[in-house]
């Protein structure tokens, strides 16, 4: 009886030990896999960051003011706004401001008519 109990307990322990071993191995390989994944992601992040830096520099290069200016002069008929055409709110209630605004409206209408 005593011997039987001993055998059972040894078997239980053996099964437990094997289970624990398998578990530990599984966890370890999982960790390894994840580490691999992290390494891969880190490499991808660095690559992306590098590409962002390149694109940022490219954007800055392409939008440099002198280039925008020459492109605008070449392709658009824009010119700097005349100061008379920039009004602040407190100028609107004054007679003078309102007068300028009215002139601007007339000017705009003329431009539209001219286009048509």
């Amino acid at each position, binding site marked *: 009886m005593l011997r039987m109990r001993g055998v059972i307990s040894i078997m239980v*322990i053996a099964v*437990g*030990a094997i289970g*624990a071993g398998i*578990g*530990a191995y599984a*966890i370890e390989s999982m960790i390894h896999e994840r*580490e691999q994944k*992290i*390494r891969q992601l*880190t*490499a991808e992040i*660095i690559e992306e960051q*590098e590409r962002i*830096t*390149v694109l*940022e*520099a*490219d*954007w*800055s*290069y392409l*939008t*440099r*003011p*002198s280039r925008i*200016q020459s492109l605008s002069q070449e392709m658009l008929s824009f010119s*700097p*706004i005349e*100061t*008379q055409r*920039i*009004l*602040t709110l407190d*100028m609107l209630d*004054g007679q*003078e*401001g309102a007068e300028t605004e009215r002139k601007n409206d007339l000017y705009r209408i003329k431009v539209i008519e001219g286009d048509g």
Partner: protein
Amino acid sequence: MSIWRRMLKKLVEVPREDARATAKTRLALPFTLGTAAFLMVGMQLVVLSFADAKVPLRLSQQEAVTERGKIYDRQGRVLATSLPAYELYADPRTIMNPYEVTAKLSDLLPHLTEEKIFSLITRNSNYAELSWRVSPAVYAKALERGIVGVYGRKRMTRFYPQKNEAAHVIGIVNKDNHGLTGIEAGLEDTLAKGEDVHLSIDIAVQAILRQEIQEEINNFHAIGGAGVVLDVQTGEIIALASLPDYNSNIYNQANTDAKFNRATKGVYELGSTFKIFNTAMALDSGRFSANDMIDVVSPLRVNGRPIDDFHPEKKPLNVAEVMIVSSNKGSARIADALGQEIQQKYLTELGLLDRLSLEIPEVASPLYPSRWKRLSTMTVSYGHGISVTPTHLASAVASVVGDGNRVYPSLLKGGLKKDFDEQVFTRETVNHIRAIMRRVVTHKRGTGKYADISGYVVGGKTGTSEKIVNGRYSKKLNITSFVGVFPSHDPRYVVVVMVDEPKGQKFSSYYATGGWVAAPAVGGFIRRAAPMLGVAPVNEKSPKIRPFLEVNSPQLDAEVQNASY
């Protein structure tokens, strides 16, 4: 027999009848130990599966390289950044057919002739640098052609997308990415740590300033120029240009003159712009009021040297009028009455006698007489005999027209944080100077008419001085300058433009003065840049503004009236 042997025998040899009991006891120990060990492993497994991974991940840290920080302008536009590039080199010992390799490389390396490439790849060595920096695209082409014996090594190199714009401010690095000039050198520690730097410069405003100065240099066949735009309240430098300049990406091709920063390292006699300070100290010291009359008619001689005016006056003028018509005689007489002590006190408080303090290494100390005599006091009042950088002038003028506190210039966004204010001028003095500066631009007898832009209430002061060549004043070569502020009733920005050696042209009636050369550049700048800087045009005649710009100038007004009728 040793004692050990006997003890072991005693332990092992047990009486037969007790054998079973002994065996049981002996087995109990390893059995317990074994169980305990497995239990511990099991528990550890359970604990690990529930615990958070607080252990730092070594992996990701290892691969993160600290890249040199980027330089941005105040709007977040990239001014300097590090990009991957390839160092292209050859191992001549492994090259079998140098003719074929030369042919394959020649169009990829436009900076080298075919002869040069051939001599590089045939030399007796195992390393020959072909280019220290080629773009990834060129490197990819080289790989595609499968040239045996030619290799690339990836390295981060500095790239300046804005080319010439603000080149002197940004500076450059050497091949090892250590800052050599400009912000790259001045903030080397910060950038090397991988931290980004945000400058006070606005690159769009910078482009306008540079263009306007360049235009005047072209118009007057000048040899160079400089400009500074300063925020009056914070001391932030919004734009800083020095011409001629260079493309930072090909710095080694630039000549010495282009590399020189005229705005912060060059010192010049900036002439009558100093009358702003002379008038301010006259009023602020309480020795003069704006209406006090000054003799600008009778001849003035000191130590046998005459002090003359560009445009001789026929009647005495008041203190404000002396500045409006820019009379040297009047300024000298005012300074003489104030004395050397008061003059030096104010100039020191304005920082005009100290080395320029800025975040770049290219700064200069002013030049002024070591023995400051009576004549020096008189000539310094109109900017003669004292040389400062254009940036000195800009910050000193900001101190006069701001709130009277000293303004320290800075190239960093947000400016320098001050613990306390250093008041130089009273509010009353500030208001007087603002109004007089506006009158310099609007009055018929004023010298700064070409800087007037309707709606922006521009104020300013011109300066023209003879250039010092080999220690002597040249009669032909001038330094012309203009310092503008806008809007005059509540100044937000100071603009200084200096043009070096302009030559009088037919259209300027052969004049090459500050009013003709530098003032139009400031005017042109304000016309284009004010909307970008968020300054709205105003109606100057409105009762909210007009009272702030009143100047009593009866003598000049009468003169103009008589001339027109």
